[in-house]
């Protein structure tokens, strides 16, 4: 692929602005279901995403084959014109620097250079750890290596070549006793190369033990509790409860949410500071340029409890009159970019874990994320397991924990912020498209008045 080829597709564009992203995606993937390898695929594929801004209407067309370029261009121009007839205010794009750069991330062992046999052997070895134990009935362990080789050009002169390399190894371990089945997540992954998947035997041992321990745990009793969330859960909480509403495209058409989420609004506890920083090196969420050619930068979303920033694309930055952040990211060559979190986390505070437990007194200590969802004001997310805490002391283990809260209240209820920090290695946000590099984290946090579902 060459920039010249892409330029030839854009040559005939009649519009204020256009950009074209071409990607080659290389994927190695295999899955063990229990002891058996049940899926394997090594594939290479590619495609184009074209965006056109014409008469204030902005539209994108996704196409697979180069010869569809002219038809795609016509369609994009037609769609943009149609939008311009109905739109309330014409779309403008925030100004950004013209960039000419080629960027390949630093990798500790490039997965592309490692033989498939070695990847299979490593995964098989980890998968064997739980399977050797009694009461472990199955596993689902996947190796995924995904390389996006991206070319981006726009009519302003930007030309960017960037590679994103994601590797991950993990899945689930399932234990069973009597009629009870318990599933635990396990995995490692990131953007910094194959090396981080090595030497993970201890992690698989630890998660196997957890799957077995959970068979003895009790289902949680429903009700309202004060809870301590471990860093992984604090990350999911930050992502679901708040992060999505710092994405300008999610709230821009909701007048009532815009009103409640004005910059300068006191939204959280005065000790709470939340950042999104895709520039954090070697983290899962790392990238240099987003999918509209803007260099990403750290954004302080909440500073000491006050809303201070938002994540933007060029379109929303102009609409909101706020600074560009470089957060317009696509899943791959099949999608136009959406605004996505990069690496979102709560800034660590001063409180050691023991002190948080004492501060909690009676409540729950919840550990490990099981996915979440938000409907705007309300959010729900699951914990893998937890412990009942009485008088600051750890008591019985609990399971089947799903909790819910309210965006406008729960952030004010964060009453303790630990002095540790951990960022997630496995992503997977599904806002219309899947973002496997969605990274989140934080310290241990203490939150009051969380509703826990239970029988």
């Amino acid at each position, binding site marked *: 692929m060459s920039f010249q080829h892409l330029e030839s597709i854009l040559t005939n564009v009649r519009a204020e602005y256009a950009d074209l992203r071409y990607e080659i995606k290389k994927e190695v993937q295999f899955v063990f279901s229990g002891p*058996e390898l049940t899926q394997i695929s090594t*594939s290479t594929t590619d495609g184009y995403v074209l965006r056109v801004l014409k008469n204030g209407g902005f539209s994108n067309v996704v196409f697979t084959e180069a010869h*569809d370029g002219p038809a795609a261009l016509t369609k994009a121009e037609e769609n943009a014109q149609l939008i311009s007839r109905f739109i309330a205010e014409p779309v403008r794009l925030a100004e950004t620097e013209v960039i000419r750069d080629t960027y390949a991330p630093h990798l500790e062992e490039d997965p592309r250079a490692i033989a498939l046999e070695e990847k299979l052997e490593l995964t098989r070895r980890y998968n064997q750890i739980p399977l050797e134990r009694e009461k472990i009935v199955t596993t689902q362990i996947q190796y995924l290596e995904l390389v996006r080789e991206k070319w981006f050009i726009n009519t302003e002169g930007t030309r960017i070549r960037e590679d994103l390399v994601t590797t991950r190894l993990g899945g689930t371990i399932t234990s*069973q006793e009597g009629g009870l089945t318990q599933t635990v997540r396990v995995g490692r992954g990131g953007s910094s190369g194959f090396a981080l998947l090595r030497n993970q035997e201890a992690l698989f041992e630890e998660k196997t033990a957890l799957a077995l321990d959970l068979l003895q745990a009790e289902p949680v009793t*429903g009700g309202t509790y004060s809870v301590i969330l471990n860093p992984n859960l604090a990350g999911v909480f930050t992502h679901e409860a708040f992060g999505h509403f710092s994405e300008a495209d999610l709230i821009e058409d909701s007048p009532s949410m815009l009103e409640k989420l004005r910059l300068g609004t006191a939204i959280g506890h005065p000790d709470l500071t939340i950042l999104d920083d895709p520039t954090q090196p070697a983290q899962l969420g790392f990238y240099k340029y987003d999918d509209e050619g803007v260099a990403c930068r750290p954004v302080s979303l909440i500073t000491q409890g006050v809303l201070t920033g938002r994540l933007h694309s060029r379109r929303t930055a102009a609409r909101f009159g706020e600074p560009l952040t470089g957060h317009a990211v696509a899943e791959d060559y099949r999608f*136009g970019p959406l605004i996505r979190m990069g690496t979102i986390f709560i800034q660590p505070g001063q409180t050691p874990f023991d002190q948080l437990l004492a501060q909690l007194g009676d409540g729950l200590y919840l550990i490990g994320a099981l996915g979440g969802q938000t409907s705007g004001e309300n959010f729900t997310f699951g914990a893998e397991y937890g412990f009942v805490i009485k008088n600051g002391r750890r008591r019985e283990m609990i399971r089947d924990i799903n909790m*819910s*809260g309210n965006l406008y209240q729960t952030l004010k209820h964060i009453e303790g912020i630990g002095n540790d920090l951990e960022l997630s290695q496995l992503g997977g946000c599904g806002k219309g498209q899947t973002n496997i590099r969605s990274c989140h984290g934080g310290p241990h946090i203490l939150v009051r008045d969380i509703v826990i579902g239970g029988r």
Partner: protein
Amino acid sequence: MEALLEKALQSAPQAEIYQQKLQSDQIQFENGRLKEIETKMQSGVSLRIIKEGCLGFAYTKNLRTPEDLVREARDSLLGRVEAPFDFPADPLPVALRTLDPHLMELSNTNLVEEGQRICEYLNSGLQAQVNVSIQRQDQEIRLLNSRGLNQSLRNTFYFINASLHFPGSQAGLEQHLSGQGFEIFPEKKLASLKELFRKSVKDTRPRPGKMKVLFFPETLYALIWRIQAAANGKNVYEKTSPLLNKLETPLLDPKLTLYDDPLKDAQPMARGWDDEGTPCRRLSIIDGGVLKNFYYDLFYAAKLKRPPGGQGFKSGLWGGETVALKPKPTLEYLYLQPGDSSLEGLIRSIDRGLLVAGVLGAHSGNILNGDFSFGLAPAVYVEKGEILGRVKEAMAAGNIYETLKEVVALEDRAHPTYGGTFPALLLDRINVAF
């Protein structure tokens, strides 16, 4: 494609090619205004080969050099993924109506005008955020294999969703419509959406505890997901399903009958063969509360020594790229048999309870065990048959093998919705926390 098959057969004695072509337009209105139009022109090919009992797989969206695809599929044989089956021979043809040729003749302007009409109707006399999304697609699928199977189909799909959102939230009430061709969204449906919204917009905070819960059709997927997981041939083979040895035993309330029927072409995307070429048929999962069947693709049917029933589809939990996915046991065409109460009658019959119009976190919790713990967004509180308003931060939890043993009633109509065609379902004594 024949040339690709020939090339693949130079590397392996069995080969299968799945080809997809797709054109789609997606139109999005937010807060009553046109926001986005996205057009997709997509194609793709996947190749499976079987050699010495092992399965190889590769895909590409853009088939430029067939040799590369064959090489990648051959490389993947290294994993020695077992292929306990042969690709099937050509199925007997079934005539299905899957195409409305007029759908793609409409311009995007026509669709935008329909969206605009709905926005205006919903906006008038109501303080609410109105969102409308319209999608249409035209898809061609071709499946070839080395046993002479050579099938193709073309289907069209039209979907429109209209929603009203509560202030300060993205939770809302919705109505949708799907079919093979364009259809004007009936005003009656829109009027009932507005009416329900008006009644539920006020905040209420009832006392928590056990109560009746009416799941609207668009939320039923969250409960049925648990049954699907437990009846999936994969989980039966791995012995993680709680339903092993439960075939032909009463499991749920006798009012519940659930089946999969890809052949019903009154619904869009009907299929006569699955993504592996196995002929489709109606498959009963639950009949009068009794568990009747598990379901399989070729792999798990062979592993469990059962005949495959045509439930092998390239589907992903979170969407995913069709050609990139491996077929797996999937119930794509579920129907829950309606009961005999009107929706209004069901609501009137509730002494104290919730209407659930959206669930959060259906994917969390111990799905295989049948456990659920959903955030309800929105949940609407009903007392003595009257809607009093909506409840924030409600959660409902339970286990389907307990809660679905006591069904109060089912709505007298089933609606095509997420995950299947379902009526509303009224349950009793569900534990609700606020």
